[in-house]
């Protein structure tokens, strides 16, 4: 995989990226309402409170949606196609994007169980997911 421009890590996102580098998934927890927030921003998108703290979650979740890219629209991913990005609802941790790390011939299915897994590109840790069970995917979509 090709290295993309470094993300502009900021004070809101540092805990998340530090977690990714340790192979862990860290979201933002609202002390006021208990909501698990992703993406982490300065206040809770559920109640507006600014009383937020990092929370490590398991990273297990389900595929909510997916897109398989065939035509790269950024020079950084020319060597990667085809590749699949999944949107995952992480149990107790919100919704996030990651690269599907399984074989490119695998077609994901919405609802399929996945596990979080950090992958590395040019020394940079990035969020990815791997199907938890081989039977969760097929060569055709289940829709």
């Amino acid at each position, binding site marked *: 995989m090709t290295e*993309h421009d470094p993300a502009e890590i900021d004070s809101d996102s540092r805990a998340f990226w530090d977690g990714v580098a340790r192979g862990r998934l860290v979201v933002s927890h609202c002390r006021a309402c208990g909501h698990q927030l992703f993406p982490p921003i300065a206040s809770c998108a559920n109640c507006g409170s600014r009383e937020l703290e990092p929370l490590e979650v398991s990273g297990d979740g389900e595929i909510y*949606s997916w897109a398989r890219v065939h035509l790269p629209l950024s020079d950084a991913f020319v060597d990667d196609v085809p590749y699949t990005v999944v949107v995952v609802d992480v149990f107790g941790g919100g919704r996030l994007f990651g690269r599907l790390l399984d074989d490119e011939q695998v077609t994901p299915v919405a609802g399929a169980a996945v596990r979080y897994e950090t992958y590395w590109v040019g020394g940079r840790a990035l969020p990815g997911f791997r199907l938890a069970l081989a039977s969760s995917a097929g060569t055709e979509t289940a829709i």
Partner: protein
Amino acid sequence: MDRLRERDPSFLGKAAIVSTGYTALSKQSGTTVLSLATEACGNALTMAGVDPAEIDGIVSYSLFDDSVACQAVATAMAVPQLTYALDMNMGGVAPALCVMHAAMAVASGVARNVLVFRALNGRSGVRIGQTAFKAPTTQYRYPVGLTAYPQYMALLARRYMVETGATEEDLGAVVVAQSEYAAENERAIRHRRVTLDEYHDARYVVEPFRTLDCTSEVDGACAVLVTSVERARSLTDAPVVIEGAAWVTGRGSGLDIADLLSWPDYSRICQHYLSERLWTGAGLGPQDMDVAEVYDCFSAMALLGIEGLGLAERGGAGELVRSGETALHGRIPINTHGGLLFEGYLHGMNTLAEGVQQLQGLAGSRQVSGAAKCVVSSGAMGDGSALVLVRDGA
């Protein structure tokens, strides 16, 4: 429509679109965006018989700094003085909102004659499909390869398909149906019919989108002129009255152009969230429409828009299109210019202008017989806008 009824919001029914103006749509305009904007605005004024000196308001929108300021256009057209100008940093979610702003300005007396335009060298200049956006949460998607517009819109399309059972056949049906109109539209950058076989042969950009599911970026400009209903009657036989208008932000909007991470539901877009307010304000419903122009940066987004506006039931848009009811002589002709898919990506300003042309009887061989009421939508994200347009007296 009961004209004496107090309208809510109060500006509805008080302003009208008088005319439209276009430039050619091309892959390389060979000219500046300012020149394009001035040409389209000038054409709208010529059609209306209005002198530039009478213009006192201009509204426009841009994305990635791809346009020119309203004041620059005023200067280029030798407009002596503006009392109202609005440059919005928004893409295709904005056209109906821009007209809504123009109508509010006219109804409140802030301005009398307001031009609304979109101009860009979207093909030879800044290409939206390949331009990186800067926002707080882009850092989560760029590094994993979610870099461009078709890619994150594909995520919406996929979830919509999962939830409703819509298929790639349904996407193909939109492409084929709209191509029938495009073949009759001289402006269309894709000026041809497409068969379902051709559709299936087209290569994937990002599943489920093939090349033909994606709008074609163009250079060009499009404008409309908004004034009071009374003034409009003195300028044209067919004022197009702004009877309904709504803008909405769905939950979780605004952190990024691809703000999907914060959305609770990928299978519904702005038209769904603004629909009730739009129709209530207009005092009309989707069943009253003679024609619909629905924002379609991608084929699937037309389906989501059709359902969001209530023109079809949830999951029923594909069947509506396949049944032929959206064709010229069908129950509700949709995207009669061929849509953004075929006419080209003027970010929905051309979608709006097509609706106006239909109600003014100017759509040529694509004219919907007796078209008097039209709904126009702008945008395919959580935020977006829409208008209900009615030919004066209808």
